[in-house]
């Protein structure tokens, strides 16, 4: 081929909705040398976009997903590719009605018009529905159906007409070549059947084929092809006579995991209710070999029968419709059901853009184009979709398939924000699991690690403390009253916390100081033994992370971060290593384990097991010392995330069990109890108003707004410094606040407890949404009990005029309003011991 492009700045592989939208946005942002490759023909190269149902229900509980979806609807609409037909979800169970109330809460939060409907109201909207099998509906007028193929075509043409894009169709990618760099490898070329393209950047937007393409470069994109069944049934007079593609709202029969979508005279019935059917990438036929398209696999009717029966229950006339087209359509499932986007951890300049629904495609295109252009996305914080969020044990087919198998039927399911996985548990455990098992630990998974969330062995504490029970099953799900009891016990005695899930990296070498200074906001050139708690920013000045660094030696810095963001943090730190060999970054997570001992008796307790002096004078807050505990070498760090005096104790994993036993033995005289992560991560931190990455800390907010700015800006340069300095100089439009609930009582007369999972809006007394001058929505970022003050606490960013303690507002939870009051704002959000006296004793 004579006009084959032998070089390109960027090669995008895959001309589905994502690849097409991405090249359009890249072109808009000035990328002028892009090649888009697909192994199939256009406009439908045979991937999942080609058989997508193409409808969009915008309401979701995740801000990140809603941001992407609403942006996508905006783009589809701007291109004239959107038919806003409305959509109604129907409930067959009371549990689903409760979920609809949660959806109403989310809809209100994101400003999407929605309403709850009685069965009769649903029937008015969809006259052929059998209202007797439903309890009600959740109606969203802005539900739309889109033309994803034509949208893709237009986005692609936009880039072509700008002269920025060459398109290669029917061109199979055979290899992705890399070159060695100082710290790994980087993209160098894409090899196709028609020639090789030297390039700087490659994006894999190849849907179900993405893992195979990533593997060519030695990278991983964790997803599995999975079947979603659908059948086109018809024709039906009631639909034919509308003479429209979509005259009726799309119906989602949520409790049977089915949808019914009009398609001219027929009805498309789709299901997420059949058994999970996973395929391997190598099992997908080529375009030539496939009877339909590669991702329209042969229909397996046995799997669909139950869905058919249920569909007929809801719409009787469906039973007489002829099944003219039915497929096992392939789509991509990831271990946590979210997309996989962003730079791959293994290969520099290799990007992932996969596991994206049509409803998110154009938004994802924009998000990635921003990310690739500016180094961070502006559209939303991608921490839930970032491909680097997975740990090595989560990137393989065993994990992907086990989790996809588990969550496939949750596609329309009711997933509790605290919900835990069943599969692939106990594959990553700390050294004291046998001990915590014996103590009746109930484990939550934290970044793949098993982390005790509360301890059944503390049941007796319920007799000592009058802690609130939760009446509503939803509030009590994945929760235990033991957590509050553990909290109160720790405040009076001492608690032992298993922190084995901490992610620990050590930066060493002659360039280590300069390197960590560059990475974080706060000054790292501190005396050996000092710790630094610091924000980590991206160039926009928004949060990338927050973490603690300990200067262990002149040129050795220990970087400690949480389990949830450890993988992303490691990628971020590794991708910024200097090109020379002046810094070595080592992941010590598996080599080091950590326990925390806190409480008024903690110092005395620990003094029993070490000869070192632990008082404030000899061992001040925020410092670390290497010493011996019962003859075991440890690093002790005086720090607290829970508001009481105590230490984090780091030791080699091989000593972990012995250390735990030593602490346990000494604790017998101090009423030491094991304390779960519910105290460590929520109630303890909330009383102190401490922030959490992914909740309060997002790239949309800067350290000043989060109250994490310091009086001075360090001299050394660091990522995001310019933006940070600017943020400090201007008047802020929002500030993080702690609020307390004035009453938890719901209309039914019992108490309700917001989950703080991000979708609960803060409203004015008039019930209006609150947006700051940048359009950011005030919503609960964390919620939880503060047992020591007997309050239920919420954290939220508020516009600056409302950041006044005493301001009365409301919170919407499960579609019901509760009165709340601003308690604290600024740097110190503490609601308990705000002078930090307890931590410094």
């Amino acid at each position, binding site marked *: 081929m004579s006009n084959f492009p032998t070089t390109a700045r960027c090669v995008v592989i895959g001309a589905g909705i994502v690849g097409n939208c991405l090249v359009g946005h890249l072109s808009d942002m000035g990328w002028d040398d892009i090649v888009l490759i697909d192994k199939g023909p256009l406009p439908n190269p045979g991937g999942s976009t080609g058989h997508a149902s193409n409808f969009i229900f915008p309401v979701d509980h995740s801000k990140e997903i809603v941001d992407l979806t609403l942006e996508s609807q905006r783009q589809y609409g701007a291109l004239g590719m959107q038919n806003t037909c409305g959509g109604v979800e129907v409930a067959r169970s009371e549990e689903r009605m409760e979920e609809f109330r949660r959806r109403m809460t989310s809809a209100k939060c994101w400003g999407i018009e929605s309403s709850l409907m009685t069965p009769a109201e649903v029937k008015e909207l969809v006259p052929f529905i059998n209202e007797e099998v439903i309890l009600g509906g959740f109606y969203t007028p802005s539900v739309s159906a889109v033309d994803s193929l034509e949208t893709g075509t237009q986005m692609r043409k936009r880039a072509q007409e700008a002269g920025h894009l060459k398109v290669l169709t029917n061109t199979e990618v055979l290899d992705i070549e890399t070159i060695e760099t100082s710290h790994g490898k980087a993209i160098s070329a894409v090899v196709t059947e028609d020639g090789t393209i030297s390039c700087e950047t490659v994006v894999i937007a190849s849907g179900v084929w993405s893992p195979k393409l990533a593997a060519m470069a030695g990278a991983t994109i964790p997803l599995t092809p999975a079947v979603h069944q659908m059948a086109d*049934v018809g024709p039906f007079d009631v639909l034919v006579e509308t003479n429209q593609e979509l005259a009726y709202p799309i119906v989602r029969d949520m409790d049977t995991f089915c949808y019914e979508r009009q398609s001219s005279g027929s009805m498309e019935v789709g299901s997420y209710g059949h058994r999970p059917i996973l395929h391997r990438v190598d*099992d*997908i*036929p*080529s*375009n*030539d*070999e*496939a*009877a*339909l398209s590669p991702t329209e*696999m*042969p*229909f397996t*009717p046995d799997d669909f*029968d139950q869905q*058919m*029966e249920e*569909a*007929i229950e809801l719409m009787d006339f*469906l*039973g*007489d*419709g*002829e*099944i*003219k087209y039915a497929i096992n359509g392939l789509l991509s499932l990831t271990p946590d059901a979210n997309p996989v986007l962003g730079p791959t951890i293994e290969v520099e300049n290799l990007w992932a853009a996969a596991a994206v629904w049509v409803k998110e495609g154009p938004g994802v295109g924009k998000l990635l184009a921003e990310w690739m252009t500016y180094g961070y996305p502006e559209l939303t914080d991608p921490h839930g979709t970032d491909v680097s969020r997975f740990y090595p044990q989560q990137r393989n087919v065993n994990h992907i398939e086990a989790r996809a198998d588990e969550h496939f039927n949750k596609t329309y399911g009711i997933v509790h924000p605290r919900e835990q996985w069943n599969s692939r548990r106990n594959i990553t455990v700390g050294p004291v699991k046998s001990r915590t098992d014996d103590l009746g630990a109930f484990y939550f998974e934290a970044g793949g690690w098993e982390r005790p969330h509360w301890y059944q062995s503390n049941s007796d504490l319920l007799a000592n403390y009058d802690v609130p029970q939760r009446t509503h099953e939803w509030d009590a799900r994945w929760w235990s009253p033991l957590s509050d009891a553990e909290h109160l016990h720790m405040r009076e005695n001492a608690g032992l916390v298993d922190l084995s899930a901490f992610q620990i990296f050590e930066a060493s070498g002659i360039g280590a100081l300069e390197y960590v200074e560059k990475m974080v906001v706060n000054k790292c050139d501190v005396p050996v033994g000092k710790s630094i708690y610091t924000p980590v920013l991206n160039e926009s000045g928004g949060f990338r992370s927050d973490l603690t660094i300990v200067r262990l030696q002149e040129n050795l810095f220990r970087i400690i971060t949480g389990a949830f963001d450890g993988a992303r943090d490691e990628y971020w730190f590794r991708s910024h290593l200097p090109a020379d060999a002046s810094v070595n970054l080592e992941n010590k997570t598996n080599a080091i384990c950590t326990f925390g001992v806190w409480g008024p008796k903690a110092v005395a307790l620990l003094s029993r097991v070490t000869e070192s002096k632990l008082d404030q004078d000899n061992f001040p807050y925020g410092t670390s010392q290497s010493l011996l505990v019962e003859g075991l070498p440890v690093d002790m760090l005086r720090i607290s995330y829970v508001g009481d005096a105590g230490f984090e104790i780091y030791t080699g994993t091989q000593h972990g069990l012995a250390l735990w036993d030593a602490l346990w033995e000494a604790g017998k005289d101090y009423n030491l109890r094991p304390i779960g992560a519910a105290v460590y991560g929520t109630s303890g931190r909330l009383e102190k108003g401490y922030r959490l990455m992914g909740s309060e800390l997002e790239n949309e907010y800067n350290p000043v707004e989060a109250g994490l700015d310091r009086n001075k800006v360090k001299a050394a340069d660091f990522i995001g410094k310019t933006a940070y300095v600017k943020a400090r100089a201007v008047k802020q439009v929002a500030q993080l606040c702690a609020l307390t609930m004035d009453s938890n009582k719901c209309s039914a007369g019992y108490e309700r407890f917001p989950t703080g999972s991000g979708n609960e809006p803060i409203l004015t007394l008039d019930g209006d949404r609150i947006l700051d001058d940048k359009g950011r929505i005030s919503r609960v970022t964390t919620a939880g009990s503060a047992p020591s003050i007997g309050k239920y606490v919420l954290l939220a960013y508020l516009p600056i005029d409302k950041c006044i303690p005493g301001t009365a507002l409301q919170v919407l939870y499960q579609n019901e309003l509760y009165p709340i009051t601003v308690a604290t704002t600024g740097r110190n959000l503490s609601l308990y011991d705000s002078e930090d006296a307890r931590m410094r004793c």
Partner: protein
Amino acid sequence: MGVMRILVCVKRVPAPGARIIITEDEQNIDSGHLGFTMSPHEECAIEAATQLSEQHGGEVTILTAGSSASEEQLRYAASVGASSLVLIENSSGNDWDPQRTARALSTAVRALENESGNYDLLLFGNEAADTGGYQTGIRTAHLLGRPIVNAINGIEAEEGGFVARRETLSGVEVYRVTGPAAFGVKEGINLPRYPTMKGRLASKKLSVRVIEDHSEPGEQYRLRLFRPAEVAKETVILGTDSNAAGAVVDLLEEMGLV
């Protein structure tokens, strides 16, 4: 004629794409990612049977020889009107040769007829979509002593038998065959209905009668199956829009067609 008893023989065959893959041992189609269906001729035979039974009152039995997976095709037939399903189980993993197939089918038909009376009509597809042997129906009819006409595009019942039509190049041939009779049906005889959801669900409730077979194999053996070498053809692109009309007509002139 009382209740018309019709038996239709079908065969499970893969539904390939534009390129058929052969297993490494060169004995079979690699159907790993393929769906299965029956020959379009057989779908039409079922439709013809269903229409006849709807017109005259009747019942339609479907008979197949194959692996237990053939139940899928039997149920499909039931979802479009068949009321009785019979499988002659072949667990060998390979198709039987035409002689053995015909022996097995005729033995089964005889057994079924001994139980519940003769079939007035046996229908076959003209040829199988995969092996295309053009003989199973004819052999089976011979073994059962029934007259058979293949390649028919029309069938009606009349007193004492059937009127079948075959379209040929020169016109239409009419065959008046006294019953009981057999025919090999060609696609085009009708437009077969699709299953409805209710039909599909009802088909699940039918039981499949399984018959064992011990027929002797025939004398035709497969040595290998392969895809003929593709002649690499360079397609000459005459254009990418309506301006290509000139080049197209040039070609037509060259060929002497205009």
